[in-house]
């Protein structure tokens, strides 16, 4: 890995963690929603560094194109423009920092103390292999996932229209 690759990698790391902090700590929810966009892009960049080309593309397509659009739509539907600037945090913010800091310490301690098995995967484009895995080894979870998506689609439409029909 050359020096330019290192720089780009750490830029993606900083982008991901920095925008996650904006998501968590910014008092205006719409700024949080847009910071989530940069988090998802940072994760997609990290997927590229992990040689997961198909996942990077679907991360951008599904998270940025689908889920983030839904979230921003939800922000606009459930927040009055006049209340956008009201701080969204609770009073227990600083109490919560202590146990969550402990969790973070435990996780980081575990990550750097464990000697993980090293077994580097070096393949080319992953799309074909992923497709074969999804239709052989993971066929049943794949089909179940499509049933789940259909159920979520129908359920979400039913929930969203429940009161409109009653009116």
């Amino acid at each position: 890995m050359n020096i330019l690759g290192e720089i780009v990698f750490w830029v993606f790391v900083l982008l991901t963690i920095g925008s996650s902090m904006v998501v968590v700590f910014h008092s205006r929810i719409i700024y949080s929603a847009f910071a989530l966009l940069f988090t998802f892009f940072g994760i997609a960049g990290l997927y590229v560094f992990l040689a997961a080309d198909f996942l990077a593309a679907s991360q951008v397509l599904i998270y940025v194109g689908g889920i983030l659009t839904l979230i921003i739509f939800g922000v606009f539907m459930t927040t009055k423009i006049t209340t956008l600037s009201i701080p969204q945090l609770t009073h227990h913010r600083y109490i919560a920092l202590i146990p969550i800091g402990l969790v973070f310490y435990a996780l980081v301690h575990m990550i750097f103390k464990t000697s993980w098995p090293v077994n580097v995967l070096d393949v080319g484009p992953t799309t074909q292999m992923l497709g074969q895995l999804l239709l052989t080894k993971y066929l049943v979870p794949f089909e179940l996932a499509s049933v789940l998506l259909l159920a979520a689609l129908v359920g979400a439409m039913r929930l969203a229209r429940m009161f409109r029909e009653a009116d």
Partner: protein
Amino acid sequence: MHCLDSYLFVSAAMFVLGLLAVVTRKNAVSILMGIELMLNAGALNFVAFSRFSTANLDGHVAALFILIIAAAEAAVALAIFLNLYRLKATSEVDKANLLRG
């Protein structure tokens, strides 16, 4: 050379930030964003281990399923938030106390 540890560190930081959002935020949409952060952290872990540790593509498939679950969850969650907003004219989870005796 960045290795497994750096990816695991990013993932741990994202997971903890998502947990903090879920615990401290009042707004339901903010809590959903925290859950999305945690799901992303888990998916990143799967892909990092798939690249550096297990040397097969099972982790990629797991990350793909996380993507599917996140999409389904976001759709249903936002439908619920819309109903909460119609009932209570707010999206704060503290106000969702219809079932309190």
